[in-house]
Each structure stands twice: as structure tokens, then as C-alpha cells.
């Protein structure tokens, strides 16, 4: 379970989180929309334990070991090969070497990068590096995925492929995906939240709404919020 209780955090006198409360259970995918500066990244960083909130409480069942973190930065070392990067991150999560080697091969095959395994990350394209970053976050088989603008740098085909992978991963996991682009990720959502000036101005199940309905509701909510 992922739980946020009355989270508050500010940068100077600008509120990034202003009384945010929610709870998610396995199987839920919360897609978080909001304009730049709404506090989406801060919320994800609080959930990931990167930021200690000024007020309130955030908890992830299973702690840091249960979290997979994907941001628009790849978090990879350019001088290391794809394989070395994946094995390094797996080792930090205490994944046995035998398991991590097999998992790296499997994930890279699913992401269409099996032939890039022994190339240094610095020679990969932005999209390829982002796909390796996705594999990095999945190496320890996390129960909770926190994704901050994960589609940045991916072309249409890679983004569609990534959405497919997320759909596959969603069963039994909790996913929180933050984006400013309403067209991205709507179809993955079981729940939708609009964040503006640190507050949830809308938080509800998606309930079959399509991208255009969400876009209309988003524009309205953000304008009023």
C-alpha cells in the first residue's frame, strides 16, 4: 500500500505540496497530471524518500526495497555498459547475481535492447537510454513504480512500447505516474489526479473516461484550482 497523509512541503513561500492525502492498493495506477511547478515531482520524491516533507506522512509498504524509480533522467553511468549498469543497480537491491543476470537479459529482450547489452550507455540514443533506465528500475522486481515524466525523450513507437510494458506490469503493482501531458498515460490509469499549486484539485477513478474527457476536466480543474 502507498499512503500519503496531509503532505505539506514548500520551497520558500511557494507550496509544492499543500495537504495532499491519498491511499493506493496493488492494482491501482494513479496518473498525476499537472502543469510545470504543480508539485508532481516533489510528491513522487517524497514517496520515494528523496525529500523529507515539511509536514504530514508518506509511507510505502515494503520501504525503499519495494520502490522502482523512473525519472526523465536515466540514472545510468555512461562509461559502464548496459549490463554493468543493470547488475550494479540490482546488487544495491541485494538481487543475487545469478538472478540479476537472467533478469537483465529478459528485460532487455522485452525492451528490444538485447543486442545493446555490452555497449557503453554513452553511445545509446536518448530513447534507448530511457528504455535501459526502465529495465534498471525493474531489476529488483519492485511492487511500487514511481514514474516522473517517463515518456520524455521517447519517440512515438518507444512510448507506445513503454505504455504496453507498463500495462503488463500494472497487475498486482501500484504505479504512480506524473506527467504534464494529458495524452500520455491516460489509458493506463485506474485513477486520475490533477495537481495544481501543490493541491489535488481533482482525484477520482478514471471510470472509463477517455483522453478528451480527461483533457476537458483537467483544463477546467486547473483553471479553477
Amino acid at each position, binding site marked *: 500500500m502507498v499512503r500519503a497523509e496531509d503532505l505539506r512541503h514548500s520551497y520558500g513561500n511557494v507550496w509544492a505540496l499543500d495537504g495532499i492525502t491519498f491511499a493506493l492498493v496493488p492494482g491501482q495506477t494513479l496518473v498525476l497530471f499537472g502543469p510545470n511547478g504543480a508539485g508532481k515531482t516533489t510528491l513522487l520524491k517524497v514517496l520515494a524518500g*528523496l525529500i523529507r516533507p515539511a509536514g504530514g506522512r508518506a509511507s510505502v509498504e515494503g520501504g*525503499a526495497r519495494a520502490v522502482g524509480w523512473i*525519472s526523465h*533522467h536515466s540514472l545510468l553511468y555512461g*562509461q559502464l555498459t548496459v549490463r554493468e549498469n543493470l547488475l550494479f*543497480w540490482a*546488487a*544495491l537491491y541485494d538481487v543475487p547475481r545469478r538472478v540479476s543476470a537472467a533478469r537483465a537479459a529478459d528485460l532487455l529482450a522485452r525492451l528490444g535492447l538485447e543486442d545493446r547489452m555490452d555497449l557503453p550507455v554513452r553511445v545509446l540514443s536518448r530513447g534507448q537510454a530511457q528504455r535501459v533506465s526502465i529495465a*534498471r528500475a525493474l531489476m529488483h522486481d519492485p511492487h511500487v513504480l514511481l514514474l516522473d515524466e517517463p515518456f520524455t525523450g521517447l519517440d512515438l513507437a518507444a512510448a507506445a512500447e513503454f505504455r504496453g510494458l507498463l500495462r503488463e506490469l500494472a497487475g498486482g503493482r501500484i504505479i504512480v505516474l506524473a506527467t504534464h501531458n494529458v495524452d500520455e498515460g491516460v489509458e493506463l490509469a485506474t485513477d486520475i489526479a490533477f495537481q495544481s499549486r501543490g493541491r489535488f484539485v481533482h482525484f477520482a477513478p478514471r471510470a472509463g473516461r477517455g483522453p478528451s474527457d480527461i483533457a476537458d476536466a483537467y483544463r477546467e480543474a486547473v483553471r479553477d484550482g
Partner: protein
Amino acid sequence: MGEVLRHAWIVAKKDLLLEFRSRTALVSATVFTALVLTVFNFGRDPTAVATIDLAPSILWVTFTFAAMLALNRAFQLELENQALEGLLVAPISRTSLYWAKFFANCAFVAVVEAIGLPLFVLFFDVPVGGVLLPLVGVIALATLGFVAVGTLFSAMVIRTRFAELMLPVLLLPFFIPPLIGAVQVTARLLEARPLSEVSGWLRLLAAYDIVFLTLATLLFPSTVME
């Protein structure tokens, strides 16, 4: 403790592999060491001041600034693609991260010093034959203190603008006590004086290492929190 050290070793091994692949900082620090020793060698008047009086200071000025080059890179390499974020999300203690950087920096500075010391002997023709072991011991003792403080400060400045400029400005005042101690001990060693003459300085170096290694280990977690 076992887990802390195991995670520290995983990260330190990665840092050393990265440095081995790029060799950027190692080559820079080594070339810098050779250049400084060369400049001092040709820039002094051997008839005005005896080499033996000047050599210890030159050795330690060189090692101090070479160490700073090394310390600057410790967290720089975590900024590439924001890898630091991944390390902070991972289920490893911040203490592991500090010790990882400490180990890697010690290894890095040791390599630079291992290249610098023979060059120093070559340029300044100082008699180290009989005192090599104690001299290496003093270098190790002082280096541990430098690296303990330097690793903490390099984490503190990494998110600031002009981090490379800030680090020496913050570090040098903290380096003064071990620097004085190291110069004093080295001078006595090169003059073939007994170690008992410098036991006070040796105690200061050891105390500095213990105090700052402990303080840095305790303070580090709050320096890397956003």
C-alpha cells in the same frame, strides 16, 4: 555493519571502474603532481634554502592540491544522468554511500601519491631509503584525514554553483592542522630524527582522522538529503 560495508564496496567498486575506464581525473591529478614538483624544482634557489628544509612543505602542498582534484570528482560522477537520485532511492544507508566515496577517494589519492612520491625523491634527491616505511605511514595517516573531510565537503558543495571553486575554499581551513602535522613529521623523518620527537604530531594526525571520520559519517546523511 556488514551490510553497510558490503553496499559501500559495491558503490566504491563502481567508482573505481568508472575512473579506470575514463582515467580523466587520475591523469589530471598525476600530471598536476608532476607539474607542481617540476615547477618547485626549477623555481627554487638551492643555495638560499637547503632542499631538506623546503622539501616537506613542497611534498604536502602538492599532495593537498592533488587530493582536492580527486575529491572534486567523487560526486561529480553521480551527477551524470542524476545517478545520485537512484543511489538515494536505493535501500542502502547514506553511511554506505559515504564510506563508498571514502574508500574510492582513498584508493584514488593513494595512486596519485604512489606516483608523486618517487617523482619527489627524484626531483629533490631527499634521503628516504631508511625512512620509507614511516614516511608512507605518515602519508597514509594524513591522507585518511584529508579524504574523510574532503568526501563530506564534496557532497555538500555538489549541488551548489561553482562547486569546483567552493570545495578548496571550504576545505583548506580544515586541512591546516593535518597539513602542519604532516609537514613537521615528514621534516623530522627526512632529517633522520627519531619518531619520538614527533609523537605529539602523530597523535594529532590520528586524533584528526578519528574525529573527522566519525563526524563526517554522522553528518553525511543530512548533507545528501534534498
